């Protein structure tokens, strides 16, 4: 490569060293930008229309049951802090609520995204590592040990504050209440249920034995291994409601999936008619001005009802089209004179 002697110092003549690498040098030419804007705008409008129309077909039934107003059915429950208060909310559907119907509970002004709250859990405990049962990590504080200095499992603020209202839905047909079966399986993320959270291995065939020496979280009525007496596989850290709760929300107003309505007569949806929702009112939110609600909704290919996305697409799409027109006008006035073929 290098010549001998005199020109030994001569730099190599490569495209790289001489900065002559072949390169694509894009120019924001009118031929690309204006049609580009137009195409993007039209595409966005198209998508926006689709999204908006799809979103309109989705049915949503939303009911606040916090009981702030004196005339609301749950006002009584909100006033007292009794553990076993129930109240009943009735509603009626004008038309068939096509299934599958999803049943959510929602909380407002609830800061699951607060940093301290968010870190207040022990991943080792939750992955079934019994070492950490006896000595929870300090991040769980002040929910690591109870007043007698016994370790709390699962420790931390998130677990401790688990939502514990329960609901029963009845369809009222001719004055009789027909229980609508609620499906609580598979409401948590697959990865949470199958990989991330692990129960401690059973001792002597019983999950409860693995929790020996620990106490339940302070707010919990029942210990973790006893969360769902009806289904032994839905206990411990693998309880679906627990998993749903532990997946904390990004924003202070959130909904979490409670149940699906996919079974029996209601697999196809909730027929029009009157319904009654029995609420076992346990979870206090009024102290911090929070709100509780239940939501029934169905979904489309794009998920639940989401007007925002469709409207945003329409707006942005229109703006792009308008912009392309403005650019065309400007360009026509000030263009490079020989750009006709560009």
């Amino acid at each position: 490569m290098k010549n001998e002697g005199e020109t030994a110092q001569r730099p190599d003549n490569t495209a790289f060293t001489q900065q002559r690498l072949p390169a694509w040098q894009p120019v924001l030419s009118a031929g690309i930008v204006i049609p580009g804007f137009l195409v993007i705008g039209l595409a966005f409008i198209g998508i926006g229309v689709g999204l908006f129309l799809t979103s309109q077909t989705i049915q949503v039934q939303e009911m606040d049951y916090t009981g702030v107003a004196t005339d609301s059915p749950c006002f009584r429950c909100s006033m007292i802090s009794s553990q076993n208060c129930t109240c009943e909310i009735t509603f009626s559907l004008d038309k068939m609520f096509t299934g599958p119907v999803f049943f959510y509970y929602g909380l407002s002004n609830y800061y699951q995204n607060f940093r301290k709250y968010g870190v207040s859990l022990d991943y080792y405990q939750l992955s079934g590592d019994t070492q950490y049962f006896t000595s929870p990590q300090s991040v769980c504080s002040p929910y690591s040990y109870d007043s007698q200095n016994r370790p709390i499992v699962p420790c931390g603020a998130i677990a401790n504050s688990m939502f514990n209202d329960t609901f029963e839905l009845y369809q009222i047909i001719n004055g009789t209440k027909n229980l609508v079966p609620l499906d609580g399986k598979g409401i948590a993320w697959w990865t949470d249920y199958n990989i991330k959270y692990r129960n401690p291995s059973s001792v002597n065939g019983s999950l409860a034995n693995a929790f020996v020496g620990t106490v339940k979280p302070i707010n919990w009525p029942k210990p973790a291994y006893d969360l769902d007496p009806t289904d032994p596989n839905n206990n411990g850290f693998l309880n679906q409601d627990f998993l749903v709760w532990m997946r904390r929300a990004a924003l202070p107003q959130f909904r979490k999936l409670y149940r699906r309505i996919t079974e029996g007569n209601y697999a196809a949806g909730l027929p029009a008619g009157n319904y009654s929702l029995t609420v076992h009112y346990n979870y206090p939110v009024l102290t911090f001005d929070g709100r509780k609600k239940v939501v029934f909704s169905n979904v489309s290919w794009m998920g639940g009802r989401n007007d925002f996305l469709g409207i945003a697409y329409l707006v942005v799409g229109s703006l792009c089209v308008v912009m392309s027109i403005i650019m065309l006008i400007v360009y026509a006035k000030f263009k490079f004179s020989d750009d006709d073929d560009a």
Partner: protein
Amino acid sequence: MFRKRPPPEEERRVRANDREYNEKFQYASNCIMTSKYNIITFLPVNLFEQFQEVANTYFLFLLILQLIPQISSLSWFTTIVPLVLVLSITAVKDATDDYFRHKSDNQVNNRQSQVLISGILQKEKWMNVRVGDIIKLENNQFVAADLLLLSSSEPHGLCYIETAELDGETNMKVRQSLSVTSELGDPNNLAQFDGEVVCEPPNNKLDRFCGTLYWRECKYPLSNQNMLLRGCVLRNTESCYGLVIFAGPDTKLMQNSGRTKFKRTSIDRLMNTLVLWIFGFLVCMGVILAIGNAVWEKEVGALFQSFLPWDPPVDNFLFSAFLSFWSYVIILNTVVPISLYVSVEVIRLGHSYFINWDRRMFCSRSNTAAEARTTTLNEELGQVEYIFSDKTGTLTQNIMTFNKCSINGHAYGEVMDVLAAQQKRVQPLDFSSWNPLADRGFCFYDQSLLEAVMVGDPAVHEFFRVLSLCHTVMSEEKSEGELVYKAQSPDEGALVTAARNFGFVFRSRTPGTVTTQELGKAVTYTLLAILDFNNIRKRMSVIVRNPEGRIRLYCKGADTVLLERLHSCNHEVMTITSDHLNEYAGDGLRTLAVAYRDLSEEQWDEWSERFRGADKATDCREDRLAAAYEEIEQDMMLLGATAIEDKLQEGVPETIAILSLANIKIWVLTGDKQETAVNIGYSCKMLTDDMTEVFIVNGHTVQSVREELRKARERMLESARTRDGGKEAEAQGWSGACAFGNGCGAAGAAAANWTPDESKCPPAQAPPSSLLESISGEFALIISGHSLAHALEADMEREFLETACACRAVICCRVTPLQKALVVELVKRHKKAVTLAIGDGANDVSMIKTAHIGVGISGQEGIQAVLASDYSFSQFRFLQRLLLVHGRWSYLRMCRFLCYFFYKNFAFTMVHFWFGFFCGFSAQTVYDQYFITLYNIVYTSLPVLAMGIFDQDVPEQRSLEYPKLYEPGQLNLLFNKREFFICIAQGIYTSVVLFFIPYGVLSHATQSNGVPLADYQTFAVTTATALVIVVSVQIALDTGYWTAINHFFVWGSLGTYFTILFVMHSSILFSIFPKQFHFLGSAHNTLGQPVVWLTIALATVICIAPVLAFRFLKLDLKPQLSDTVRYTQLVLQKKRKPGGRAARGVGSSGAAGGSALGRLGRGGSRRSGYAFAHQEGFGELITSGKNMRLSSLALATFASRHSSSWIDTLRRKKHTNNTGAQNTPPTGDDITTSSQAPPLSTSSTLDVHQDSAAGDAGQTSNEVVFTHSPEDIALSGVRDAGGCSAGSVQESAFVWKGIGARVSGANSPGPPPIEEETSHGE
């Protein structure tokens, strides 16, 4: 650094041959240490140094904050990973640098020298030489330490040294030992020598030494004349002995090479300011969020305690707010990314390598490539406004060639036109065939002169006889016919060589005789007197008696002086010769008139009597001698005139023209005399005859200098007033000077205001178009060193600066190195402009160090300048490439890089701010902490680095073709506070979009299986993905030059992001580190949702579309010149019709060339160039015979001087010894310079254009085609570097269209002028 320093010396006492005595004083040994670390101290010292950087300390502080659990909103590794990365990169760099310093130190310290120890010469390493030792030096050896010369092999204790390494002067200097010590002679006597020297403490004054030698109860004063300084080379002296006075770090050389002060670029300073602002911004954000936190904790958090109790130490909302402030400082610290500084360094390093690798800045003749010695200044190369240039060796090659002559009214050497010249140049006259003594390196093209010599024209013979006799050159003949001349000044050498080649060979001299060989016949003249040169006389004469016994005075000197002293019968010849002289001067040649006078014996006797009287006089000897000289140099007969070309470096006029088109002002600061400097000013086209006025400030008193400056300003005003109102720009430019001038009142009589031909050159004659105006300055200022000394005083410096800056060209002559630095400092201080100093000698070091950017020409004059410089290359013309191509790109790239960098970090960080309002101001991050760690160093670093290193807006040819493209850099347009705020605003806008779009979409969205999407992890992944995509699209938009590397990095970064995302969220990693990677499955769950992708697409379009629209509209409504050029380039590429461009270029350049022709005949002012660079007093040395015994050894090696030196080894790069390259005589092609070539005719221009267009410029490009006035920038081909780089053939093909109109038009609003040109192309 950690060496304990003895208290500063008051005086130095050194006793020869007495180590014990000298050791008492603990003088430094001769061991030098320029390295900073050793293996043990490296880590602590280097870390200590690095943490002195504010940024590094800041990140250390953050790291400590993060270790406090109450505050830590991020894991410690988010900071420590980048910090360690940054620290280690810097450490590796420092270690490498230091390693090379160690190596060069070792090499120097281990040089051998001969030390006299107990009477015996012993070989000793340099580092072991002690103060008080006596060492022996041999010819061509480097002096190892500062020595007191004791004795030498030459008579009178003389010894010759070359001080090029020290002060850049190539001529030899004489040093003489005290006569008492010179008698010592041999080693045995010297071993007994026990004199004691008492002298000043070590200092850095090269030209001063003050001490006393006490020996045998006598005192002998010592001066610099007795000293040999380290770094000098012994020449022409077989050997000498010296006593070490200063060693190692105390030597004047080392005292002078103090650590270069660290230069920062203006971008650096701006960046630091901005970083401070960002800190302020950060604190504001922190305060806002802390207040928010206080309010929230009071209003909500306090009530929320049933689910989230406050930590025990956090018992109230105020304390919580305080903690929250620090937590947010940690989170938001990424607005000042730690990778910023390291990325900037990497980019600059890349640019430096591009400079080093540039083949078009490689000179094959000297085998040196350009070198960026500092890697931190590159982008400032794109902002230079003032260039301060040395003359000798920088603009000129310091080679004088005998170019033309006029003998008895007949001009020789005139080359009729370019085409003829081209043919002739291929074959210069062949002298060797008839003259065996001819110098092969000499080139002359005019056959007629040789014929005149052959036919025996007596005037011609006499002419060359003068040249062969009247000089102070020494000659040495190693073997028969191998003559080597040692000339004091290159001018003389050129003249004597010319005479030699034309058959009048100067062979040897003794104090009383001069032996020549005239047309093969040896003739010995008796040298009766040398009437030596001095500055006032501007001439020298010799009086000789020829073998026939006739006495003649031969004189050569400045025409102005000499023509006055001619005999009246010379009138006719004088008129013709004057015309010739004018012509030569107009071509920028240095002229001398040559005359003789016949003296009768009586005249001689009478005069010699008087002369001896004057010579012996003790008082006013100088004056009396001058009077005596004056008396005899009368009534001379004019023989003719010589024209010597002070050979410019290749491409100097072109470079200067292009640089001044780029609005760069060039000031020449030279130690040379005014005449020489002015001559060079003309020949390199800084000065032209079209200039309205050339002011010369020459006053010796404060008053006269002030008045001259005042007068200059007044004249500028006047001429501005007489000008029509159309030239507003100029009027504005002068308004400052205007105000000043008015304030100063009426001007007094100027002492020496030199107004050459303003009467002939009324303003109306000024070039019509704005292009011409922009390059042909109206005024020039020439100021001499003694005036400058006054002008630089505090009360006058502003006045001087105003005046000088209003001039197109400024030449300062007879300036000292210190004044050079002061001038640079003055401009630096008062003009907020970037200055560049370029020079090659040690006398330029101060200015190189002072200027923002120092450029060293690695030429013949040692390498002091190169060592002090930031950039070095071997040819002045590379400067245009360095500035217009590399500098411009560097600036552009750096600006784009910074804009994008701040943008991406604001877009990234500010999301946290918005999220703060929704998470109770709890310093919850939006993103996964791994994303935060990797965002800056992995996901977004490489694409922007690639852009910062490789981006180009227009191809390099275009930036040379349109020098106006350089202007945005000077005006600091591409990155300033305004641009910064725009970037920040864009970043904040992006962060708003990136937060609120996902917020709006996801808060109610569910997956298609009904599971809500509003959980934190989904939100984090969505936002992060959208962010990475948006910033990638943005960098794609910002990148103007998509090489494969850019593609690889941009796509690679995106790919890496998704890969790492999926890996981190995979079950495998979770099973290994269950606690670390709890985003398990998020990527999978989130990115499988169409809603998420719709959200990302929406956010991307909302972020990018406005930017795109804005840029498009800006391109349409207010295109920058670079946009226009780029666009035109594109259109041209599409059309492939280069012919149209060339044709247009011919049109304009042809017209310009025509006008240049028309002006040429008008002639210039008389610019005499009696340009002997030598000091007076050499005549005396010759006649005294002191310097006659030059040893043959000395001269044998003299011709092949080694240019490699030990200082070379201080340089990192290994340069092979380039003696071979230097010894080869320059070929004909090399010798030709632009100034010889008359302007092109239109047809020849056309030829060049067509050749160029055809890409076949190979044959023609060696020819410099440059018309005589710089305003006619009809540069039809840029000179190829005579084989300097093959690649420049392409470059030479550039065509200079009528840029001016376009260039000026492009800055004004309205349709870009390009359209005219391109439509022409169709």
